[in-house]
């Protein structure tokens, strides 16, 4: 038998970025058994002591299938490592709705040096729950952010899953493949939330990629015709095989983070994200009826926001809102 888990010790080892501890911690936050959930809440609380400012930059990468997200992620983590930053990756693949199983294949496309403890890659199934991220993704990001300077969450999809990634990331990067018009249409129509950064991948395709880029820029011009926001999403062209544009992408991500810092917006954004994530977890567990019983969406969100402002994690906030009928 394994010895009982010392959560405080585990948190300390996570902060020291020991790969085995990070792996164990993520397995713990994935574990749905009641005993594990209690430990998971305790672990996340311990990790909070690291403090907001010292925590890793959280980037969400999303986009349609075939846009080359995994290869981009591979190039991004390589360049970030070369710049001396430690990198934690959470690669999310869809679960099969029939069997609940999943093929986690992204790892294959990320170049991982087995001896480099400054790069950690974890694959996770979407769990087939609501959107593109599983229940445990938010907590897994918390774990990674306590251990690594740059945390990247990769998930497939255009539509619902973007809102998911937004819940766990400070900066959302949407990756677009040249000559695929859907994304552009979604953006123009306002169906798609505007991300923080737009990437036109596969710039090695030449003219097609250049055209995609200029189309995006003019779409943004049209969207912002009424007035410029304080952050207008930059458009970056990248190519994973040649690593072209990757340094620029990192710079833009950093700029976005600096922008949030300058506006003192980071804490507010994280609070908003954590509260929204808590609502998502709550709804997933107790359903719409549970939300109604708890006083409705807005009331719940307000309480979650308050709990998060008081230092609770999303998981904790949900645990505190256990409806009476659910304890039977």
């Amino acid at each position, binding site marked *: 038998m394994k010895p009982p888990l010392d959560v405080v010790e585990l948190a300390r080892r996570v902060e020291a970025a020991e790969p*085995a501890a990070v792996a164990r911690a993520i*397995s713990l936050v994935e574990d749905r058994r009641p005993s594990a959930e209690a430990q998971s809440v305790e672990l996340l609380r311990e990790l909070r002591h690291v403090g907001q400012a010292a925590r890793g930059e959280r980037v969400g990468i999303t986009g349609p299938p075939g846009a080359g997200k995994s290869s981009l992620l591979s190039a991004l983590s390589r360049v970030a490592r070369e710049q001396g930053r430690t990198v934690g990756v959470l690669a999310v693949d869809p679960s099969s709705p029939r*069997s609940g*199983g*999943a093929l986690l294949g992204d790892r*294959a496309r990320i170049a*991982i040096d087995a001896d480099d403890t400054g790069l950690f890659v*974890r694959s996770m199934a979407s769990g087939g729950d609501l959107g593109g991220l599983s229940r445990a993704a938010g907590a897994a990001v918390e774990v990674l952010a306590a251990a690594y300077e740059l945390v990247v969450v990769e998930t497939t999809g255009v539509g619902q899953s973007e809102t998911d990634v937004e819940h766990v990331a400070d900066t959302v990067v949407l990756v677009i493949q040249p000559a695929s018009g859907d994304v552009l249409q979604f953006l123009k129509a306002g169906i798609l939330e505007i991300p923080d950064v737009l990437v036109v991948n596969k710039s090695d395709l030449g003219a097609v990629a250049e055209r995609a880029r200029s189309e995006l820029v003019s779409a943004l011009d049209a969207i912002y015709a009424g007035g410029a926001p304080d952050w207008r999403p930059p458009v970056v062209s990248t190519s994973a095989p040649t690593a072209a544009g990757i340094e620029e992408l990192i710079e833009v991500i950093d700029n976005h983070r600096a922008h949030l810092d300058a506006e003192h917006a980071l804490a507010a954004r994280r609070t908003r994200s954590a509260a929204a994530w808590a609502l998502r977890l709550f709804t997933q567990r107790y359903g719409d009826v549970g939300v109604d019983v708890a006083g409705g969406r807005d009331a719940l969100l307000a309480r979650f926001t308050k709990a998060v402002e008081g230092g609770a994690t999303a998981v904790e906030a949900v645990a505190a809102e256990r409806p009476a009928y659910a304890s039977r």
Partner: protein
Amino acid sequence: MTEKDRPWIMRTYSGHSTPKASNELYRQNLAKGQTGLSIAFDLPTQTGYDSDSPMARGEVGRTGVPICHLGDMRALFEGIELERMNTSMTINATAAWLLALYIAAAEEQGADVKKLRGTTQNDIIKEYLSRGTYVFPPGPSLRLIADTIQYTVEHVPDWNPTNICSYHLQEAGATPEQEVAYALCTAIAVLDTVKERGIAQADLDRVFGRLSFFINSSIRFVDEVCKQRAFVELWDRLGLERYSVREAKLRRFRYGVQVNSLGLTEQQPENNILRIVLEMLGVTLSKKARARALQLPAWNEALGLPRPWDQQLSLRAQQILAFETDLLEHGDLFDGSPVVEQRTSEIRDAAWAEVQAVLERGGTVPAVESGYIKERLVASNAARIAAIEAGEQIVVGVNKYVEAAESPLTSREGIDTILRIDPSVEKEQIARLEAWRNQRDAGAVKQTLDALRAAAKSGDNIMPASIAAAKAGVTTGEWGTLLREMFGEYRAPTGVAGARTPASGHDKLEKLRKEVEALARELGRRPKLLVGKPGLDGHSNGAEQIALRARDAGFEVVYEGIRVTPRELARAAADEGVHLVGLSILSGAHMDLVREVIKEMKEQGAGDVPVVAGGIIPDSDAAALEKDGVAAVYTPKDYDISRILEELVGLVKRAHA
């Protein structure tokens, strides 16, 4: 009576341990009446590594002969007159290099290079889809193929520069229609590459005429007769319509065959002798579509490497068919047969439609890169396996008529019924390699490598620079490393994501899903399985089928594809928090590789995760591995994947719940 047909070229796919040991084997085989040679190279040679590369560990001399430099090639053919030999080389990513060494060795013998006859397999598409010894991305790979074609058409005119393979597609589960379709797609990719170079029509005609095929033949020999005839018709049509080849002779479908290994069984292995003979009929009976060259596997391939006696038995089967029977005395046996005509047209039309489907997807390379073709093959193989599991497809001795008397061929105590590679082979080969490096002219090596780099960069034909490098003493690893730097390395899609378990045998899958659900509740999360292929072996069919079924049973499956190092696998097992690791190794290097993975897993804190291994693993090796801590060993006789998964569920339960 028609004039007696000439017999096909008779070969045996062979080579092992060292160039010297293989040379002795070749000379014995030729003395027994073999009329050509078929060289098996070891995996480091096939993937461009020297024998002393860390990547080569455990693999040197195992699946074939190691050839690191001209000295090795010289030793391989000592006493064999290359000008008069017909040599087939199963070599792909490094085909241009091995051909360069062959030409250099032949020149040393004083041969007239123009008279050299033989074949370089040189088909990279099927490596992406099935066999797994690719190195470079599709673009540079096709360029290397086109270079060898253009070079040989001009300088070695009787050489078959590329042997388009449908063989490995069938091994990966292809139906006859898919086999024909995707082989033709590969030919189109190659021919289009050559054509785009802007060569004259007369040269394109000659190139078309030099393309040959390497075909599989299964136990369903009526299908096989018709498949070959469909090939003949479609190749003619393709030549005429797409490439405007006017001369009918140049549109003749020329092919060699290795009959099916997929259907050979570990259970009652002597039955395989009969299967091999029946499979041979499918490619010899029809005069109109008869193989030009034939090689037969040995009856005990599912057990391990065959011995010379086992290979001799297969050669005798060919000789008896060609020289004792009256087959070659007659014209085509099937002309006018409505059955054969009907089945031929079915295969022909379905295959042609699939060729068009691939072309509509932008062509062969995009259909490979997107995983389209691979997914269809994985799905076909899943259907085949499910039919065997369900008893719908009968395999004698496996899922029917399993009662058998003890076999005197395999049951003798203490006597190996397979060939064992002496572990000292690797050390000897490395010592010879070091001596070779020390005695060569370093200046000439550098100069020819620079010229090779320049040719790779400029797009000049790679062959002249490679031949010069071969003569200067450059090694296989140096050639491979330089081109890796220039072209980059490639990872092909695994095809598992888009395939699914067929409906056949669905009850078992439903039952399994319930067990996995129950296990997930006990574990607190879904059971997570890492499927790994350590080492250089690229035969991924088994790993793919396990990954596919495990996913469809509700596992979360991490599968990174082929050629992952033990250290990388251990890191993946640790970081991913998996409950179980399954390793698949078919090259015979299982002892070294499995132990290495377990050792690395202990170092990286995943020592408590159970490991199972699958492959062509003899009983004695399996026992040794189990002693080393491997939880279970699976071999080709374990055809029932549902049962394997049930055992894995139990294993995870015992280890973690």
